[in-house]
């Protein structure tokens, strides 16, 4: 590879942490030398395809596989009946209440299908094409059941049931009451006493994570051992769960996440197809690969968001908030996947945001519908919470005739009040909301924009300008294990790292995190370079293979740096402590007299006597001259369990233009200042913020998974589900303030989800600010031109989106050249 970087030729090594190091990962990615799971070819490899339900809700009355079985190249056709005794139930690791209803989730349907796209059979064949061809030959008889699509109707008395044998479509009812928990005052009383109460109903539309690399699984059986390659965020969790689901002993299963092309929570899952590929490989005794098509992915990989939120805020006339009450309906979809029920619970503590609410109550119903299951999508619960609070703060400001920033400022926690325990019982460690806000106002050029807004309003310009705020915080760095336990989560939140010192002085770092775009190989190298005083280039980071990285809890919830990175620091500290003992022996000095700096141990006050950590490493290898009673190794491992979450925060400001004639919303300027604590690599941080913003803005303006009245997903391709292109997104002006986290030695807070969590309400608030004077009080997300136009014409929130025909989009697309075309017509703006 020719991607190299010069090291600064200075004497004392520069600190690596804080440098915008170009990424080590890039070398293979920019040259096409990547190991995506689908690239993998093994001797005798077979291909699996999945027969999927075309109906939302039906009993399976018969499956005829005979024609498929006779098709050329087909080795096996397996139905739910065939696999019923060995497939177990897909795991749900988060029973949020003791009486939560979990009807179980078969990897392949046996008697009944409960959403479009659910697996009903699999075909294993010699080639991908043969497996796909044979799908058509599997004949399934369905006896239709009524679809259950609307959450509120699903909870009504006498509603059709998704799952037979359940008492209702409610999976659980989960409550956090600050008064009862002793973390806040009585909410009912606060509302009874309030001078002002504002109530709103917000809809968090259903979204699709839409990672760019489609999911793919390869399973190689070798005797009673199975090696599973999967495009997953969670190889460690997957290994454990595959073992628990199938009964194959854990030590007989090895999982490898090779290069993984994005996840965003969408690959934080134990999928039906992972189980099915494993079972199929076991049946046929040969390696089997399954790679999904994009349409399969959009239809059957888990979705995100999908909540109806009833939010009440109480305040006095001066704008001091007195209480917050949230009632949430959360669509589980047809089944409870890995953390489906827990997603709203992750948000439950964040509805109060950065504000000093004296009273707080949250309750949530998890509801079954005949749709694709929901689960984590970037932010998982916290974007929903942030949207609700940042929208309702604007509504309160409007009600009181106050400036939206003024209302926020009046109520937010001031810098000198940290650490601050909130009405939800969380202790926010550090932050400075005023500093971030000031910086963001400067970045966006606030006063000029307000002046322009006035001019446009006065002149009745058809294009109106609005400015929207989101002063957000989030809890991340999942998580203190004890807290997860108290929330009934099925696992801990620690992370593991080990460091191996090689005889040549090079360093291997094994991490339990599982990056899929986040640049851990680079950032962890920077951390270790500082800790051990070795060159950045001399560090190799190993991850994603459970045989190499035996323990870990993987990557999600902005946890990798603040938990996994800290584990690396702790392991390095142990290496240095061991090396110190060896160095003292080699230098014939006392350990206490040694200084360690720049990778060398030296005897204090005795210039010229020193030994490098590389020399110590070699001394360990030979072990010829080693301290008495010490094992000849300075390798070390560490497991870190944080004491607290971390609480990044920031101020996001969006300036949006609304064309009142067409309804089109265009982001004119977007500025954000995030406080994510200390920064290890500003380049990677900036990239995470950009990508997060894109996804949060996409929720506000573009994306929505739409089902028709029969329960068909009508946004099942990239033609209809609008992942924004470069032309659909603005330039971002980003900045940081730094309030170091107190819960970890890196002082870092986590950045993976911040942009997504913060941006959505800023955009919606901006659009509303542009048209409020025209009588618009709310617009349902995504703010398509059609919805905005309808809201402008007739009031209301713009209503449901049309389920067919996609001219409602604001993006620069609506058509495709699907299928085969000539080279001349096959590139460029054809989306």
């Amino acid at each position, binding site marked *: 590879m020719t991607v190299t970087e010069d090291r600064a030729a200075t004497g004392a090594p520069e600190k690596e942490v804080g440098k*915008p190091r*170009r990424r080590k*990962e*890039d070398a293979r*990615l*920019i*040259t*096409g*030398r*990547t190991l*995506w799971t*689908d690239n993998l070819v093994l001797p005798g490899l077979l291909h699996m395809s999945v027969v999927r339900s075309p109906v939302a809700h039906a009993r399976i009355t018969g499956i005829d596989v005979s024609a498929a079985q006779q098709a050329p190249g087909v080795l096996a056709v397996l139905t739910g009946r065939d696999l019923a005794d060995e497939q177990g139930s897909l795991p749900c690791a988060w029973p949020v209440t003791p009486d939560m209803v979990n009807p179980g989730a078969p990897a392949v349907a046996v008697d009944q299908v409960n959403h479009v796209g659910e697996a009903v059979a699999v075909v294993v064949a010699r080639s*991908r094409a043969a497996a796909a061809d044979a799908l058509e030959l599997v004949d399934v008889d369905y006896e239709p059941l009524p679809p259950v699509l609307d959450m509120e109707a699903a909870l009504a008395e006498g509603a059709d049931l998704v799952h037979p044998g359940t008492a209702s479509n409610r999976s659980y009812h989960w409550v956090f009451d600050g008064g009862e928990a002793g973390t806040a005052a009585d909410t009912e009383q606060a509302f009874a006493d309030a001078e002002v109460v504002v109530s709103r109903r917000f809809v968090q539309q259903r979204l699709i994570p839409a*990672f*760019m690399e489609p999911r793919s699984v390869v399973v190689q059986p070798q005797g009673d051992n199975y090696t599973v390659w999967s495009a997953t965020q969670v190889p460690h969790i997957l290994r454990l769960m595959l073992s628990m689901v199938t009964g194959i002993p854990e030590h007989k299963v090895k999982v490898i996440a090779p*290069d*993984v*092309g*994005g996840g*965003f929570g969408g690959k934080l899952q134990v999928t039906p197809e992972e189980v099915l590929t494993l079972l199929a490989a076991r049946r046929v005794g040969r390696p089997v690969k399954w790679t999904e098509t*994009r*349409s399969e992915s959009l239809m059957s990989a888990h979705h995100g968001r999908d909540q109806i939120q009833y939010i009440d805020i109480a305040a006095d006339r001066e704008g001091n908030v007195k209480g917050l009450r949230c009632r949430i309906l959360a669509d589980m979809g047809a089944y409870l996947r890995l953390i489906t029920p827990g997603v709203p619970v992750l948000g439950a503590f964040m509805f109060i945001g950065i504000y000093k609410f004296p009273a707080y109550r949250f309750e949530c119903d998890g509801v079954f519908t005949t749709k694709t299951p929901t689960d984590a999508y970037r932010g998982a619960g916290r974007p929903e919470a942030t949207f609700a609070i940042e929208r309702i703060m604007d509504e309160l400001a409007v009600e009181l005739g106050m400036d939206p920033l003024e209302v926020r400022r009046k109520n937010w926690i001031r810098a000198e009040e940290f650490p601050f325990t909130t009405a939800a019982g969380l202790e926010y460690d550090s*932050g400075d909301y005023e500093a971030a806000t000031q910086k963001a106002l400067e970045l966006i050029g606030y006063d000029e924009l307000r002046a322009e807004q006035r001019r446009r309003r006065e002149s009745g310009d058809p294009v109106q300008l609005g400015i929207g705020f989101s002063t957000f915080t989030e809890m991340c760095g999942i998580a203190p294990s004890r807290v997860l336990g108290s929330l009934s989560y099925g696992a801990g939140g620690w992370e593991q790292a080990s460091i191996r010192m090689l005889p040549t002085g090079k360093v291997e770092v094994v991490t339990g995190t599982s990056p899929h*775009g986040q640049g851990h190989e680079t950032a962890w190298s920077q951390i270790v370079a500082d800790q051990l005083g070795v060159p950045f280039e001399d560090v190799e980071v190993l991850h994603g293979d459970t045989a190499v990285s035996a323990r870990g809890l993987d990557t999600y919830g902005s946890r990798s740096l603040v938990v996994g990175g800290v584990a690396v620091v702790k392991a390095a500290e142990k290496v240095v402590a061991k090396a110190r003992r060896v160095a003292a022996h080699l230098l014939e000095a006392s350990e206490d007299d040694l200084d360690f700096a720049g990778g060398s141990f030296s005897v204090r006050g005795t210039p010229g006597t020193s030994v490098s950590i590389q020399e110590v490493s070699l001394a360990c290898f030979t072990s010829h001259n080693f301290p008495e009673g010490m094992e000849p190794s300075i390798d070390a491992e560490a497991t870190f369990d944080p004491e607290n979450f971390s609480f990044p925060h920031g101020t996001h400001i969006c300036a949006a233009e609304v064309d009142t004639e067409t309804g089109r919303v265009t982001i004119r300027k977007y500025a954000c*200042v995030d406080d994510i604590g200390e*920064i290890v690599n*500003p*380049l*990677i941080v*900036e990239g*995470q913020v*950009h*990508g997060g913003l*894109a*996804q949060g803005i996409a929720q506000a303006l573009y994306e929505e998974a739409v089902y028709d009245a029969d329960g068909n997903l009508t946004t099942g*391709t*990239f*033609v209809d589900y609008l992942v924004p*292109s*470069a*032309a659909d*997104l603005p*330039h971002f*002006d*980003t*900045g*940081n303030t*730094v*309030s170091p986290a107190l819960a970890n030695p890196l002082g870092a807070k986590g950045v993976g989800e911040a942009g997504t969590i913060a941006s959505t309400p800023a955009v919606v608030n901006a659009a509303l600010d542009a048209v409020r004077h025209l009588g618009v009080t709310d617009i349902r997300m995504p703010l398509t031109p059609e919805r905005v136009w309808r809201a402008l014409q007739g009031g209301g929130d713009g209503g449901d989106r049309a389920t067919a025909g996609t001219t409602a989009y604001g993006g620069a697309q609506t058509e*495709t050249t699907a299928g*085969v*075309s*000539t*080279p*001349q017509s096959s*590139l*460029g*703006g*054809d*989306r």
Partner: protein
Amino acid sequence: MTQISVRVDGVTYADDVEPRTLLVNYLREQVGKVGTVVGCDTSNCGACTVLLDGVAVKSCTVLAVQADEAEVTTIEGVAAPDGTLHPLQRAFHELHGLQCGFCTPGMIMASIDLLRDHPDPSETEIREGIEGNLCRCTGYQNIVRAVQHAAGEMSGRARSDGPASDRSASPADVDTAAAPHAVVRA
């Protein structure tokens, strides 16, 4: 089966293909060019973009038989034979224009085509020029910077003379990768 002869990244291949085989599947499964990837089934994502006789195409919209007697360049063939990276590859690396990297081969191939037609593109021209290529990770900003930076390098121009309304990748961007990223210590 149809016999085709295709030159891929400088090597000639003679192969039998099914008439329905898409170029991308031929490249991946028969030629072993797995650097080119498939991201969708509706020709929306651009992940599969390659150069066909020098022109960028989405290789999932072209039949392998249509590439008979043609020259195909994939991401694996854009660096010089001695391994020197293409300016766009370098720029994506320098300006952090990729995260997971799944869209990157297609982005780079589409950008090669864009810069051939527009050697000095504005930000808007770049955004519109790569609009057929989806990226879920980066929010595109650093991709835009990378293309601008490569354009400057390829034409040997300093990039400070761009239209005022468009932001170009100034050396400051390149050095700190953070401008106009501002940091305040609280």
